[in-house]
Structure formats: structure tokens, C-alpha cells
């Protein structure tokens, strides 16, 4: 059929079964928005900032496993969206971001709202396109969705000049994609897998090192099966939270910079690391030369460039972690004797007893860790949890009782403040049944606070729990520990009245200073099912502990610190 480029965008989104698009219109994308106005197949959610549109699409993608879609205009609209693309790139989130561009005849003339969008997005997307002919649009959009969701998932950016959206051409949206140069390896090499299983069977202290790739690959169920069958203990990366249930006896906890003592000690003592969809990030490994020093490494990853990038893998296995586990499980059943690791379990139990993850209560003052635990006690599995970036994020990763994959949505690789609230809206849109909580800080929430309007307008009742310490807490913590307490530009004593602020947008606000008030506020917000801010006054000087100072060895943890 002969239709306009703008209509093609709509038809492609329908063909991809997109149910929601987050976006913000502008001059160069208006033809497409005109078609959005006319269609009833998907919902368009108008955010109040392009960055938030992309983060919301990320939250939606994380919660569903589907490709998130964001639509933005040229120039400033596009540059505002870049942070979201970079965030999605770092955390391997499948996205298609469609941006408008000035007409072809004006490209390169420094036209109004022109920027070299594909030049900017190139290093922070999996792939990108500038479409110069409407006849290419069906193929490009088909490829964009395919590339975004296959292999190591990631954001794909499609930049479309305004005249191309007006151009009439033939729309033929094929079912199949054939890209000669792009064929991700999805099945693991059988010989390597056999060797890996033999290594596990003869190891004394094997350790499962679970990464976010497991969540992306929908492989958590298989990981649960594999760990139960083999009785191999596991540590989770920040991105992998929820792979195993929080109360799984085999789960030690999170490892890394703010991981538990037991997790980091287990990683230091293991003789065989079984890395599944984890990329040995510097926040996890600490000092590389000391990381799992006595261990052989099995590394399963869909991205060949991640294997042996930082830590040499003795058993490199490139493939989709779900497929690889399917290949491993029957062999493991035959060859691995779960009784073999009994003394290793004892060692880990001792680590756990020695320094469990904990915090000290101080009279009536609310502790941020308590707030996180309390949300877990009151809502548990019924809530999806997003966070912004900072101390609150680490406390949530440490103390929330996660029970399932995709329950946890946070900005890992890029560490984007302002991510949490729009992402939580995307999560809510994806899962209206559950409560969507954004645990945030008084610094982070202000970075995308304008989205209160979006949440109210589209009835996406996200509950923002601000762990308010009137500080940029994590930077303050580092200043305290490493800069002799020179709190340069981190004191946020002057903050808005968050209650009045959320009320101005049409939501509900609570300021709480006691446990009772917190319980009542959370209960009320959940019952009312409204957009809310719960502004929780917490201890200003609480630190995230334990901590491995950047570049330090995992086994050299700072377990406590007393403010003098």
C-alpha cells in the first residue's frame, strides 16, 4: 500500500504490537504526531520531558521484557533523550527511540532545531539509522525492533527527517528480518559446556555469579532450577536482584562495592566462578588483580566482547544464558553431586554469621534501611520497586526482599539520577495490578519531578518514597570518607515542601518522621491508589555499609564507620 512515512511509523508500531509510546512532540516529528492523533491502536503518553519519555520506556521494557518505545523531536528534544538512550545502552534494555529531524534539504545548514542526531547517538546505542527515503522506513523499523530485542538487547535510534515523514511510498512490512552481518550466537558451544560441567563437578567451592543478563534472557526460572539441583551457592549483582528469592537458602546476597561481607568473601574464597550474564563490572570486582584470585572462571554471556574483557575466562561460553542453562541442566543432573559442597556451605554460613547485613536503630530517628525493609514487609511481592541513584538505591538493593525477576528496576551501568520516577511510571503502565514504588532521594527526585504531571494525567499512581536526608547522600558519604568531610555542594538543607509540591500537581503528599506515620502514609497511599510523595525524614549522616572503597579488594571491606 502507498502511504506516507508518518503513517508507516504508525503501521510499524501496530505490526510490532506496541501498546504504549512515551513521547513529546515538536516541529520535526509533527507529521507522525498527526497520525498518532488519528489512531486508536496504542496509547501515547505525553511525558513532560524527553529524558523522562525514554526512561519511562525503559521502565516499561524492564517490567515486561518487551521493546520500549519513545518518540521525540529534533534538536533539543533529541539531546534531552540522549541520557535515556545511554542509560538503556549500559543496562542492555531493548528500546526503539524515534526522533524527528529537520527536512533533508536543511540537514547540514545549522537549521533551527537541527543537530547531528545519529552522530550523537552512535556511541550510546546498539545501532542507529538516519532514514533518507520513506521507501526504506519499513525495513529500517523492522530491523530496529529486531536488533533492539535480539542478542544483547539495547537501544536503537531511528532519526527521520520531516520531509521523509511526508513522503509517500510503498509500505510492505515483512515478517522476517534477514541481516547478513548480524547473527547473534544464541546457543552455547557444546564442548565448552561439557568442560564447564566437568569443572563444576570437580570444584570444591563453586559459586554462581548471577548478572542482569539472566533477567533480560528470562532465565531466572532455570537459574533457580540449576542452583536447587546442584546446591551451589549464589551471589547476585545489583542488576540481577530478584533472580533468586531473597529467602532462598542458597542466595548469599549482593556482591560488590556495597555487597554483603559474606558475598564478597565467598567471591574471594571460591575456586570456581560460574558467571551467568554478568559482565565483571568494576563496581562488582573491586581491584581486578585480587578478584576471585584462586578461582577458575566460567563465563556465559550473549556478548562475545564481554567474555574475558576484564577477567580471563577459562571456560568462555557465548550464548543466550537461557539456552546455555537448558544445555547445562541435563549434564549437571548426571555429573554434579550436590553433597560435595557441604563444607563450602558451612564456610559461607560462618561468613553470614560473622557480619550479616544490618544497621543499628537509634531511638525514634527513622533509619533509611528500616524504611526499605518496612516497604518490603508491608508490600513484599505486591510491589514493583524502582529507584533513583544514590544511597537510597544501594539500601534498596541491600534490604528489599525481592521475590521475582523484573520486580527491580534501577539504573545500574550509567547511574542516572532522575531515572527512578519516570521508570516507575513505565513499570506501572506495564503492570497496573501491582503497586509501583519509586524509592528515591531528595536530590534525585528533583531531577524529573515534572513527571508528577504525567503520572496524574495518565493515572499512573506511582508512590515516591523520598529518603530525605537533605544531602546528596552518596557524594556526601565519599566526601566524608575520602575528602576529610569537605561537603562541597552536597548540602541540600534548602529543599521544597514536597507535600505542597505534589499537591500542586494534583497528587497526595505525606511528610513522616516516625515509624507509625510511615506505616499510615504508605497504607493510605496504596489504598487511595494515587500519585504520591512520602517525604521521609531520615538520619542525615547514615552511610551505606559495608563498602569496598573504589579500586580496593573485595575482601578488604569497610564494615563500619562512626561519624566523629
Amino acid at each position, binding site marked *: 500500500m502507498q502511504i506516507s512515512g508518518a503513517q508507516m511509523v504508525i503501521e510499524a508500531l501496530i505490526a510490532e504490537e506496541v501498546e504504549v509510546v512515551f513521547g513529546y512532540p515538536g516541529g520535526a516529528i509533527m507529521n507522525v504526531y498527526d497520525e498518532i492523533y488519528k489512531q486508536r491502536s496504542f496509547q501515547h503518553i505525553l511525558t513532560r520531558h524527553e529524558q523522562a519519555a525514554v526512561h519511562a520506556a525503559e521502565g516499561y521494557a524492564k517490567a515486561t521484557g518487551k521493546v520500549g518505545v519513545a518518540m521525540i523531536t529534533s534538536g533539543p528534544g533529541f539531546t534531552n533523550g540522549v541520557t535515556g538512550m545511554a542509560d538503556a545502552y549500559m543496562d542492555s534494555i531493548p528500546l526503539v527511540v524515534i526522533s524527528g529531524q529537520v527536512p533533508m534539504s536543511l540537514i547540514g545548514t545549522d537549521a533551527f532545531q537541527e543537530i547531528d542526531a*545519529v*552522530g550523537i547517538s*552512535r*556511541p550510546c546505542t*546498539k*545501532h542507529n539509522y*538516519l532514514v*533518507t527515503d520513506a521507501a526504506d522506513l519499513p525495513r529500517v523499523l523492522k530491523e530496529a525492533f529486531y*536488533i533492539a530485542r535480539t542478542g544483547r538487547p539495547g537501544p536503537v535510534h531511528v532519526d527521520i527527517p520531516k520531509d521523509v515523514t511526508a513522503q509517500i511510498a510503498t509500505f510492505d512490512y515483512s515478517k522476517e528480518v534477514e*541481516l*547478513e*552481518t*548480524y547473527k547473534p550466537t544464541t546457543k552455547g558451544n557444546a564442548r565448552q559446556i561439557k568442560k564447564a560441567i566437568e569443572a563444576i563437578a570437580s570444584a570444591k567451592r563453586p559459586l554462581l555469579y548471577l548478572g542482569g543478563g539472566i533477567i533480560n534472557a528470562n532465565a531466572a526460572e532455570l537459574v533457580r532450577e540449576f542452583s536447587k539441583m546442584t546446591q551451589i551457592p549464589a551471589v547476585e549483582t545489583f542488576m540481577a536482584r530478584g533472580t533468586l528469592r531473597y529467602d532462598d537458602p542458597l542466595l548469599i546476597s549482593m556482591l560488590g562495592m556495597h555487597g554483603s561481607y559474606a558475598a564478597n568473601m565467598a567471591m574471594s574464597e571460591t575456586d570456581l566462578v560460574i558467571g551467568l550474564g554478568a559482565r565483571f563490572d568494576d563496581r562488582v570486582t573491586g581491584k581486578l588483580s585480587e578478584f576471585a584470585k584462586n578461582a577458575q572462571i566460567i563465563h556465559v554471556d550473549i*556478548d*562475545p*566482547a564481554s567474555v*574475558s*574483557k576484564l577477567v580471563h575466562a577459562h571456560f568462555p561460553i557465548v550464548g543466550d544464558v537461557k539456552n546455555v542453562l537448558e544445555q547445562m541442566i541435563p549434564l549437571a543432573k548426571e555429573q554434579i553431586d550436590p553433597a560435595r559442597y557441604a563444607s563450602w556451605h558451612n564456610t559461607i554460613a560462618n561468613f553470614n554469621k560473622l557480619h550479616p547485613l544490618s544497621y543499628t536503630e537509634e531511638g525514634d530517628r527513622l533509619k533509611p534501611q528500616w524504611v526499605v525493609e518496612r516497604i518490603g514487609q508491608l508490600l513484599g511481592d505486591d510491589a514493583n520497586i524502582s529507584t533513583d541513584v544514590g544511597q537510597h538505591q544501594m539500601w534498596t538493593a541491600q534490604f528489599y526482599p525481592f521475590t521475582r525477576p523484573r520486580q527491580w528496576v534501577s539504573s545500574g551501568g550509567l547511574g542516572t539520577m532522575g531515572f527512578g520516577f519516570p521508570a516507575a511510571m513505565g513499570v506501572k503502565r506495564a503492570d497496573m495490578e501491582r503497586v509501583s514504588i519509586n524509592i528515591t532521594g531528595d536530590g534525585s527526585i528533583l531531577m524529573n519531578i515534572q513527571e508528577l504531571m504525567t503520572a496524574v494525567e495518565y493515572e499512573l499512581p506511582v508512590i515516591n518514597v523520598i529518603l530525605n536526608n537533605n544531602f546528596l547522600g552518596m557524594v556526601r558519604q565519599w566526601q566524608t570518607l575520602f575528602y576529610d568531610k569537605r561537603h562541597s555542594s552536597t548540602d541540600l538543607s534548602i529543599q521544597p515542601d514536597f507535600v505542597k509540591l505534589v499537591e500542586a500537581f494534583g497528587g497526595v503528599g505525606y511528610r513522616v518522621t516516625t515509624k507509625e506515620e510511615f506505616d499510615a502514609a504508605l497504607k493510605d497511599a496504596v489504598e487511595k491508589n494515587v500519585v504520591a510523595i512520602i517525604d521521609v525524614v531520615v538520619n542525615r549522616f547514615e552511610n551505606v555499609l559495608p563498602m569496598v572503597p573504589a579500586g580496593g579488594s573485595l575482601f578488604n571491606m569497610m564494615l563500619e564507620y562512626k561519624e566523629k
Partner: protein
Amino acid sequence: MMEQTERRVISVIVMNEASVLSRIAGLFSGRGYNIESLTVAPIPESKYSRITIVTAGSVRVVEQITKQLHKLIPVLKVYEHADLVETEMALVKIPMSESLGDIEALTHAYNGRIVNVGSDTMIVMVADEPMRVNHFLEAIKRFHPKEIVRSGSVALER
């Protein structure tokens, strides 16, 4: 422990499409890898281009470069050459006042010839292994060259 850095030649076969070169170059600059030379041209009777990159790095760095190159969507193949025939070209402009016979003999020795003779200057061309091109450029100095231009390497596995 310092890892040993070595000169490497990498060939990349890519789809012959817009912006593919900037993807390749951007990958190098974005990751802090150095490009010593880069040559690109379409492969005859195909929809591909061949890019020959000369770079330097340890085994680990070069492995990462080839993996990252391969991750780019329009990249079909990446070869890291071990045993190869490698050729580079140089053009040199020399004043006519210099001895034509000596220059001709020298360029002959490096698989070259005189390609242009004008009233004031002549241009000679050599095409040889990069190391031999270095030697030629060293030797040609005595004839007071006015301008020198060298191409990047092209290479094929033996």
C-alpha cells in the same frame, strides 16, 4: 606487569553504506584506541567495503578491538592478520634541479617510478612494504623533497 604492545593490521569487511566508517573510527576514538593508518575502498562487484586498519596494542587490547568491531551491526568479518602481504604507497614531489638518473634508480629499487615531470618539479611514486617505504623516504631526503604523501596500508593474508 606491562603487556607488550605490538603493531597490528586488522581488516574489516563492512556493508558499503552511509556512516559505517564513522562507526568504525568512533569505536576506536571512544575507547581510546589509536589508529595508525586506515584505508577503505569498495570490494569490486560486491556490496561490501574493505577497511584496513593499522593499530598498536597488546594481545588483550587487540582482542577487544576485534570483538567490539564485530559487534557493530554493518560489520561482516574482522580479520586480525598474522602472516600477510602488506603494501603502502607514497608520492614524493622533488625539484627538477635534482639528479633525475639517481632518483629514477632509487625509486626503481622500491617498486616505484617517476609518474610526473613538470617544469619545476617531478613526482615519484613507490608502492612497497611499509617498512621499506620508511627506508625509501629516508633515502629520498638527500634530493630535497618538497612534499611527501603516504597512503595507509592495504593487506591480504598469504
